[in-house]
């Protein structure tokens, strides 16, 4: 793959990730339905995770796993992609799931009390 195409990917990957974060935040801030708000959070989390993994990628890199045949060729360590962002994303995904579950439980409870998910009818959540 030649370099100009790859330079374009710079904008494509990060641009998409940031766009997805913004779309999610837009949904969170504008939408009236509580479930839509939580969906927005989940979407923006996805964009964020893509952004973090993309930082660890190197052109032509290999996965950070030392398979048996790999060891003879020790120089190729420098060809591995960065494992640190991957480890951080693992943590972030699991934490994000926990937060989403808590938010959904709150949605269920608010529905139990109000019989609606419309943010306008739930007095304290208007802003």
């Amino acid at each position: 793959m030649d370099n100009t195409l790859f330079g374009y990917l710079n904008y494509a990957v990060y641009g998409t990730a940031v766009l997805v974060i913004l779309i999610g935040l837009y949904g969170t801030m504008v939408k009236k339905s509580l479930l839509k708000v939580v969906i927005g959070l989940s979407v923006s989390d996805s964009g964020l995770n893509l952004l973090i993994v993309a930082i660890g990628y190197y052109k032509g890199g290999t996965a950070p796993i030392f398979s048996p045949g790999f060891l003879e060729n020790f120089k190729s360590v420098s060809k591995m992609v960065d494992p640190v962002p991957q480890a951080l994303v693992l943590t972030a995904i699991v934490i994000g799931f926990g937060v989403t579950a808590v938010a959904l439980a709150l949605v269920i409870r608010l529905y139990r009390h109000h019989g609606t998910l419309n943010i306008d009818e739930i007095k304290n959540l208007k802003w």
Partner: protein
Amino acid sequence: MIYFILISVLLLLMIAASVYSIIQKDLLYAVLATGIISLILSILYYLLQAPDVALTEAAIGVALTTIIFVITIRNTVRMEDESDKKEKFKSAVK
């Protein structure tokens, strides 16, 4: 080249799915769109040489998050504007 096209297409699909999930009035379809985002992400992670993350995203994002969203929708309302509350959900899944 093929790698390049693949990534571009996946990124475009991801944007489309996220826009769809925000503008769709039917929350069930919106949630399915977030599931599709996770599916695309998981392929992207694989292409970005992050198999561990891909596995996690495939299981958490595609299966678990989607299902707890669906359960929540089942327990609350399906449409964003809530004009006809539960009827459509029941008829759609049965």
